């Protein structure tokens, strides 16, 4: 794999500065803290209409698969819920939520690293 050129660093730096925050991270964090419904804007509103009160992120399928994880707010609850749907997926989703919460910090770090690279 080739290393990016300085031009590519500059282009990415400009794009990163303009890019929005991590939407999935926001959705995941909101769901875990019990206000998942508010995050439904990210997923199709039509999907939400199928499910009524039992939706998660606006989707019945997601609610069915992941409800065991998101209905509880403690890490223990996530793991217990995860067992019901498969440890692999539970791990993935918990990791996703965790990483999503840190996403903006990561972006800031990346912008800072890029700035140093461009100026070096």
């Amino acid at each position, binding site marked *: 794999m080739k290393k990016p050129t300085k031009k590519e660093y500059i282009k990415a730096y400009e794009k990163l500065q303009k890019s929005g925050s991590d939407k999935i991270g926001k959705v995941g964090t909101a769901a875990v803290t019990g206000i998942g419904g508010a995050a439904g804007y*990210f997923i199709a509103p039509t999907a939400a209409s199928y499910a009524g009160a039992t939706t998660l992120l606006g989707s019945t399928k997601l609610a069915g698969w992941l409800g065991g994880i998101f209905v509880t707010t403690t890490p223990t609850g996530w793991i217990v819920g995860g067992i019901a749907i498969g440890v692999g997926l539970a791990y993935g*989703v918990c990791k*996703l939520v965790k990483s999503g919460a840190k996403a903006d910090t990561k972006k800031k770090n990346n912008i800072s690293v890029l700035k140093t690279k461009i100026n070096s």
Partner: protein
Amino acid sequence: MKEIRFDNIKTIEDAKNYLNQIDIENDNIEKIDIIVKLTNAGVSQEIINRLDDLWDKTMFLGKESVAVGRIITIKIMEFVEQNPDVAAGVAIGAAVALLAAQIPLIGSLLAPIAFALGLVGVYREGKRERGEEIEPGLKGIINDLIAIAKKFFKLIIETFKVIKERYSNNLQLQPVRIV
């Protein structure tokens, strides 16, 4: 290190040598380089953040530590670069789908990326239902691309199959705190 041409991976030595070769060939590549390339290719920040996480994952083969996340991320990026006519996000989707299906061992590492890609898929489905414009024929493109990915990732898949056979119960993925 002299470059070895691998046609297939049959032994644990082959597997380790192949992983070593990828590591050495890309010695000068840093995580930020992958982020730069993906950002410039228009990949969404959600997917980039999950690949960023994957980069840091290591696996212990006995007492040896292998930068498995770094190696897989680099191979995924190479696949994206070798398919310039396909949107980067679609190429990543095909690569992740294939690797997660063929190598259960690393499925948990790829799950966050697959999940992020899945949410994007649900979002697209919503757009379609609302009558908004989306690119047509994505399913067909993905299927074709997975066929290409099978060839591209053949050695990586064989490598992890050999590793799984050799180390079976002694394999340890980097422990990750969930909270």
